[in-house]
Every structure is written in structure tokens, then in C-alpha cells.
């Protein structure tokens, strides 16, 4: 067959719809998802900001209330507040950067890659951020004379969080790699 013949076969389908739409189910779906404009990174950023802000303020308030001289816990609250601020600043930069991409498939892929790079970077930073937070928390517990089982429990908790952070980080890395492959396929042969 020549290409024009293939096109004729292709065009003929316009008179015969391939599917029928269940309109009721479709509008129910739109109704349930129409407010779902938030991207996953938006949720994880907000979670990071609120968790660090909340935990930082709470630790600071408890220290001040108890008139504690536990330096580690003061450093810990300052660290968590700084983390919340860092995430907030980067979130604003990300949102501003969203308007720099054109509406073509290549532009959309570039945007998706930029988002994925951001997620890779932020997940890596947040994973490493667990180390100082864990160290300061454990030091605070030690200085506060807490029983050893609490220290072990907290250590295990941070260990699991660190592991989960690595798992999340790898998902973003894989997604980024897939998008880069697509971008490469689109751009080659020029």
C-alpha cells in the first residue's frame, strides 16, 4: 500500500465512531475530579512546610514553657523553622518558574522534567535533613535523661523515615529519567 491509501483507510473511520461514551459516568468523574488541580509536589511541599513549622514552634514553645536549658532542642526548633522557610522560598521559585514553558509537547516535557528535577533535589535534601534532626532529637532526649527505650524507639522511627525518603527519592529519579528519554526521542533526528 502507498501512504495515500493508508490515509484513506484512516480517514474512513471518522464516519464510524470507535467508542460510545457513557455520559453520566463521565460527568460524575469530572465532578469528582474537577478540583484536583494540585500536583503531588504541591502537597508534599505544603506538608513539609506545615510539619516543620508546627514541630519547630511546638518544640520552641515547650522549651520556653519549661524554661529548659536543653540547647539541642533550641537548635532543633531553629533547624526545623529554617527547613520550613527553605521549602517555602523554593516553592515560590518553582511556582514563578512554571510560566517559562511553551504549550507544545516539548515545552510540556521540559516543564515535567523541571518539576521532576525539583522533586529529585528536594527529596534528596529532605532525606539528608533527617540526619541532623535525628541527631539533635536524640541529643535532646539524652540531655533530658529520657529512658533508653524511648531513644531506641525514636532512632528506629528516624531510620524508617530515612529509608522511606530514599524510596520516594528513587521514584522521582526514575520518573525524571523516563521523561528525559522521551525528550531525547522527540528532539533527535534534527
Amino acid at each position, binding site marked *: 500500500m502507498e501512504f495515500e491509501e493508508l490515509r484513506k483507510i484512516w480517514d474512513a473511520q471518522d464516519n464510524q465512531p470507535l467508542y460510545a461514551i457513557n455520559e453520566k459516568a463521565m460527568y460524575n468523574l469530572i465532578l469528582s475530579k*474537577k478540583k484536583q488541580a494540585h500536583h503531588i509536589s504541591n502537597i508534599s511541599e505544603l506538608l513539609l512546610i506545615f510539619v516543620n513549622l508546627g514541630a519547630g514552634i511546638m518544640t520552641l514553645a515547650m522549651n520556653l514553657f519549661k524554661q529548659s536549658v536543653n540547647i539541642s532542642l533550641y537548635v532543633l526548633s531553629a533547624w526545623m523553622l529554617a527547613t520550613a522557610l527553605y521549602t517555602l522560598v523554593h516553592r515560590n521559585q518553582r511556582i514563578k518558574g512554571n510560566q517559562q514553558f511553551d504549550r507544545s509537547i516539548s515545552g510540556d516535557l521540559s516543564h515535567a522534567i523541571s518539576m521532576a528535577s525539583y522533586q529529585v533535589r528536594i527529596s534528596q535534601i529532605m532525606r539528608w535533613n533527617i540526619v541532623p534532626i535525628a541527631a539533635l532529637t536524640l541529643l535532646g532526649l539524652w540531655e533530658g535523661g529520657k529512658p533508653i527505650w524511648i531513644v531506641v524507639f525514636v532512632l528506629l522511627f528516624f531510620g524508617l523515615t530515612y529509608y522511606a525518603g530514599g524510596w520516594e527519592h528513587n521514584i522521582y529519579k526514575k520518573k525524571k529519567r*523516563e521523561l528525559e528519554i*522521551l525528550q531525547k526521542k522527540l528532539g533527535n533526528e534534527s
Partner: protein
Amino acid sequence: MTEKEQKQIFEEWLNQHKALIFKIVRVYGFTVVDQDDLFQEIIIQVWHSIPAFRKESSVTTWLYRVSLNTAIKRTKKERKHYQSETIDGTKHILEESRIQTDERLAWLYDEIYKLDEIDRSVTLLLLDGFSYKEMASILGITESNVGVKINRIKKQLITKSKKYDHYGI
């Protein structure tokens, strides 16, 4: 834009251009379950895209961009779905037409499906009669790049169609 206006535009677009979305769904979804999942994702993206439509391009071009963007980025997920496929049937939006499809059209769809994600988009745009310039604008690549891809895809499809003719399938 009010929700009523958005719904009105959505209905209008879908009535006039559903064939376009059906083609993309068929080309990027291997099983009926995949096709239904992809259709759901595309219509959600189309719905969200309505307020951003500035009439700088035709509705067809806009819908192609939105739908292909969704389809291309979804391919990897789709493969996983295919492996763990469960047919539920209760929440499906698409129902396959009972009209007998032309055998040659089914073959053409199969051949397009065998191409990679990007080449599938180029082939769809080519078969739907877009110019090099329009394709370049939708894909965000140069016209010469589009030309090279088209030449390669055309040769590939013609060679395969000759084999198809030869075996008289």
C-alpha cells in the same frame, strides 16, 4: 469563566472532536481497560485546560496538544496496568463500538502502537492531515526534525503494508 460556561465549551468540544480523542486513546492504550483509563485522564485534562484556551490556535490543535501530552507521559504507567489488568466494567466511560472495524484499519492501529511514544504522535498528526508547521508547533520541534521523522515513519509503514499485502491478511 463560570462553571456553566466551562461545561458548555466542554460539551461542544467533545461533540465535535471526540473522534480525535478516540484515535489517541486507541493508539496509546493497548487494552480496553487502558483505553478507558487514558480517556478518563484526557477528559480531566481537557476540562482543566478550558480556562487557559486563548484562541491562539484552533480547538483541534489545542485538543491534540492536551491529549497527546497526557498520553505520552502516561505510557509507562499504562504498561504496569496492562500486566495487572482487572476488568471491572462498572465505572467504564468508554464502550467499544459494535460496528465491525475495517481489518486494514485494525492492522494500521497495531502498527502505530508498535512505534515509540513520540513516533505515534507524529503518525497521528500526519494521518490527520496536519502540516509540517502545525506539527512542529504542537510537538515543539523544528519543521526539519518533523520532516526527518515523517520520512522514516512513512517508509516504515509502507514497507510493513507491503508485507501485509503480500500475505493477503
